[in-house]
């Protein structure tokens, strides 16, 4: 198993020349015959394509071998349905996983090309908004590494998450057409296209035997064309499949209308159909109620379930065996329509009795919840649902009727409980509750961190927990150490491998072996050298993208994630303002010079988040231009946060900001990525922070603030008194007053007055002023600790050493054992 530079070169030396020559030949052939280009005319982007195609050849070989093995052994297959897969760049990841990176480096160097430069030509596949989509991508890596027969199902969005540009501190969104120049990774499979009817009405009739037969009439048909991406596992033994569907019209266009001279009318239907997979919805409230989004969700589910049933029927003829051979995991509620779709197929198409179909459906499906905010749970107006999916609404009504009968038996006369648990919400208008549908239709319901799972049981869905306690379980999220350490941080990966060997790459708990080196001066020096080098690289990126010159010796304090009220970038900014005003007005110097680095996208329709981006820029502009502060504080916002940028920022972090309001972050995975790369965490007891604390120890983190139970109590008792904090604490007052004083918006008066009002509002859902002082204290402690560089580095090493639990291999192995009942070829015990 080859990965790091030294070992790969040493072990492969005897055959290296031949292998390098084979790679060169393969790249040349693809340039000539796949791209149709003379070598001398090849652009950088085309060279990337040729290299990627030559790597893809190897993946295809593996895929064909594995498909053959699966045909022979017919193992249980895992199907992971997700509306988002945030893949990022693939080339570097494949080269690492296949252990051929150094061979490619050598092959390209003889062409006069630099591998890193070639890798940078790749567009990020940004088919997701954030954590949920990136989790799905990490799982694909772990499926392949663990040898679990698995397929991810998603949508082949033509436009991924928007590109973020900053204009005078304001976010501007630009379309991100990642497929504009094509992608070498996808293999289109038009021969496996499937037909998806949508819209229409139900005609109530009788069948040939006189039974009730609801027929779906007047539908419109979409065609789903699968595009396969091959996902390599570490060691290259297995590849997973990511099957992304693109929507196509049922006909290219109506030739008759075209012949009549109306070309635009002829293509109108085609364009409307293809809109379905055109764009990824940003994660904001505007998604709710959007007809196109509902069609997208059904399109994904219909294509995936049809494909899954087709594969099953290739080897089996009894549907009672379906759950023994197929598991279907729903990544949040977006694919929850799978409950109704599988029932529809089993009852309508396969003629199963309702009870048998229901038993099969429940035994097959598992549901992963990702949110605790009741208002964020997906709902669809019944009228819209009926217009888009009339037959599915009928099926959901029948599921609900039978389910509520059961609730009534368990809790006779408890009308309120029935109302709460119903899949159909009685409101104006009536709504279909997708989380309830998913919970009723799945044999497993899991949260993504321990506190999150407990809050699901006690706050979000206590009625369901009482009815189905055996269904609820926790699967704390994880990240793939291949992308987030081996690829992102080669310096640290090499240091670790040269110290404890390469076992950590497939068993992250092996990092524990670093603990004995944590106090070793030589190891500390190497660790510090790697971090310093990563910080220098990031400093150049900050200079290039944010035009802020920063000192790599300063403490890099980093908050990178989607911009959202509950993630509390505002609290971070309030601390920066406090530190700045203490310096310039009180003459109080911080413990150490700091560089505050932010990155993240605001949902386009989310005004508050966009204002926070503007605030960060304006605060940065004032502080960065104040000579009194220039040695001590810098603030930078790096635009267009994405996976490939995260891979550069995270290895350079000293301090990781994980400061969400307790009880709001389901898990977080940025917290894991940063700690794995040797950042210390300043954070609240929220999401996976709690489990990180248990692993790394309280003495190696900076924990502060309200706990989830305290937040809940304050909400229930309405005991938040921000004015008291404001009146009592001059630091609080000075920071809050700065928002109404135009200090940070001299050219746009009153721009941030809303923040003054917001943080002093007793209804502030994120308790900024209660958590402000403990946060400032924790920050001071962090600063003091950073002054003692030896201590800080020792703590950072211990963080890395104790992050073994947070490998997505562990997470996926738990899903496999406890939900899906499968074993992989290399599954961890």
């Amino acid at each position, binding site marked *: 198993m080859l990965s790091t530079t030294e070992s790969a070169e040493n072990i492969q030396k005897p055959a290296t020349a031949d292998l390098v020559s084979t790679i060169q030949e393969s790249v040349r052939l693809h340039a000539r015959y796949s791209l149709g280009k003379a070598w001398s005319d090849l652009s950088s982007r085309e060279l990337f394509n040729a290299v990627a195609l030559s790597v893809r050849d190897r993946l295809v070989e593996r895929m064909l071998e594995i498909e053959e093995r699966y045909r022979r052994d017919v193992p249980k297959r895992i199907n992971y349905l997700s509306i988002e897969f945030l893949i990022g760049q693939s080339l570097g990841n494949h080269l690492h996983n296949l252990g051929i990176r150094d061979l490619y480096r050598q092959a390209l160097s003889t062409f006069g090309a630099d591998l890193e430069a070639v890798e940078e030509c790749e567009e990020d596949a940004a088919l997701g908004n954030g954590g949920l989509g990136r989790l799905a991508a990490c799982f694909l890596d772990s499926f392949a590494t663990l040898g679990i027969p698995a397929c991810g199902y998603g949508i082949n969005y033509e436009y991924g998450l928007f590109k973020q540009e900053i204009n005078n501190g304001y976010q501007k969104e630009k379309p991100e057409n990642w497929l504009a120049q094509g992608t070498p990774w996808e293999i289109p499979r038009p021969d496996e296209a499937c*037909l998806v*009817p949508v819209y*229409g009405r139900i005609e109530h*009739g*009788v*069948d*040939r035997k006189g*039974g009730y*037969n*609801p*027929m*779906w*009439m*007047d*539908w*419109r*048909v979409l065609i789903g064309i699968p595009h396969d991406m091959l996902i390599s596992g570490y060691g290259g033994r297995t590849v997973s499949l990511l099957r992304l569907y693109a929507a196509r019209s*049922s*006909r290219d266009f*109506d030739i*008759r209308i075209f012949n009549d001279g109306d070309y635009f009318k002829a293509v109108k239907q085609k364009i409307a159909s293809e809109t379905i997979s055109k764009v990824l919805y940003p994660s904001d409230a505007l998604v709710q109620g959007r007809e196109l989004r509902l069609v997208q969700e059904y399109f994904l589910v219909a294509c995936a379930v049809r494909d899954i049933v087709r594969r099953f029927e290739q080897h089996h003829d009894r549907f009672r065996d379906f759950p023994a051979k197929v598991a279907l995991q729903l990544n949040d509620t977006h694919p929850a329509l799978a409950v109704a779709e599988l029932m529809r197929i089993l009852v*309508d*198409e396969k003629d199963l009795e309702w009870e048998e179909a229901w038993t099969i459906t429940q035994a097959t499906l598992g549901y992963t919840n990702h949110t605790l905010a009741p208002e964020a749970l997906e709902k669809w107006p019944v009228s819209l649902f009926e217009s888009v999916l009339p*037959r599915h609404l009928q099926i959901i009504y029948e599921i609900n009727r039978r389910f509520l009968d059961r609730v009534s038996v368990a809790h006779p006369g408890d009308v309120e409980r029935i109302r709460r648990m119903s899949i159909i919400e009685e409101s104006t208008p009536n709504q279909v509750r997708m989380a309830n549908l998913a919970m009723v239709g799945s044999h497993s319901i899991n949260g993504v961190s321990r506190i999150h799972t407990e809050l699901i049981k006690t706050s979000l869905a206590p009625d369901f927990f009482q009815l189905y306690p055996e269904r609820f379980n926790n699967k704390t999220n994880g990240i793939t150490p291949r992308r987030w350490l081996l690829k992102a941080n080669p310096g640290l990966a090499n240091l670790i491998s040269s110290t404890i060997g390469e076992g950590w790459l497939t068993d992250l708990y092996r990092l524990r072996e670093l603990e004995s080196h944590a106090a070793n001066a030589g190891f500390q020096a190497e660790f510090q050298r790697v971090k310093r080098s990563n910080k220098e690289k990031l400093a150049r990126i900050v200079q290039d993208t944010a035009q802020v010159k920063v000192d790599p010796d300063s403490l890099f304090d980093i908050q990178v994630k989607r911009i959202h009220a509950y993630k509390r970038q505002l609290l971070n900014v309030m601390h920066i303002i406090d530190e700045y005003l203490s310096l310039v007005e009180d003459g109080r110097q911080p413990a150490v010079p700091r560089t505050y680095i932010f990155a993240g996208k605001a949902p386009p329709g989310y005004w508050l988040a966009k204002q926070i981006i503007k605030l960060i820029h304006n605060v940065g502009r004032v502080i960065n231009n104040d000579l009194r502060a220039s040695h001590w504080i810098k603030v930078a916002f790096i635009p267009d946060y994405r996976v490939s940028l995260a891979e550069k920022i995270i290895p350079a972090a000293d301090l990781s900001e994980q400061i969400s309001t307790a009880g709001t972050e389901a898990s977080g995975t940025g917290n894991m990525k940063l700690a794995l790369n040797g950042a210390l965490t300043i954070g609240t007891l929220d999401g996976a922070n709690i489990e990180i604390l248990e692993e790394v120890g309280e003495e190696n983190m900076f924990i502060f603030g309200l706990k989830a139970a305290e937040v809940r109590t304050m909400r229930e008792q309405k005991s938040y008194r921000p004015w008291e904090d404001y009146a009592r604490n001059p630091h609080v007052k000075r920071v809050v007053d700065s928002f109404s004083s135009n200090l940070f918006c001299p050219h746009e008066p009153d721009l941030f007055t809303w923040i003054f009002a917001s943080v002093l509002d007793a209804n502030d859902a994120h308790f900024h002023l209660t958590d402000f002082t403990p946060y400032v204290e924790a920050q001071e402690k962090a600063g003091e600790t950073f002054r003692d560089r030896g201590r800080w580095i020792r703590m950072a090493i211990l963080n890395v050493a104790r992050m073994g639990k947070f490998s997505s291999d562990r997470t996926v192995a738990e899903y496999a054992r406890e939900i899906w009942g499968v074993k992989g070829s290399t599954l961890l015990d």
Partner: protein
Amino acid sequence: MEIAVDNIDSIAVAAVPVDELDASNAGEFKRDIAPVLQANTRLVLDLSRLRFVDSSGLGAMLSCLRQLSAKSGDLKLCGMSKQVRALFELVRMHRIFDIYGTKEEAVHAFDH
């Protein structure tokens, strides 16, 4: 469209003469099959050539079935491709039509 009608054992067998039966030609099909429906009570529709059918096409076939049923006749279908069959199943139309593999089987079914 020109619909060829055969007579096998006194059963009319009409071949749908297009690859795709959809909104663009379902009306034409209904118009041109009307004389066949008037002249016969027992009809087999041979769908061997059909590769794609949309809801208008299915609606046209349903209309044929209803017209024949109204005069105590019957319609049977044969020669469906896998894709067309899948669409019938998707919308539960396979439950109201008698569907056979070949036209001989469909014709023979009228006798039993």
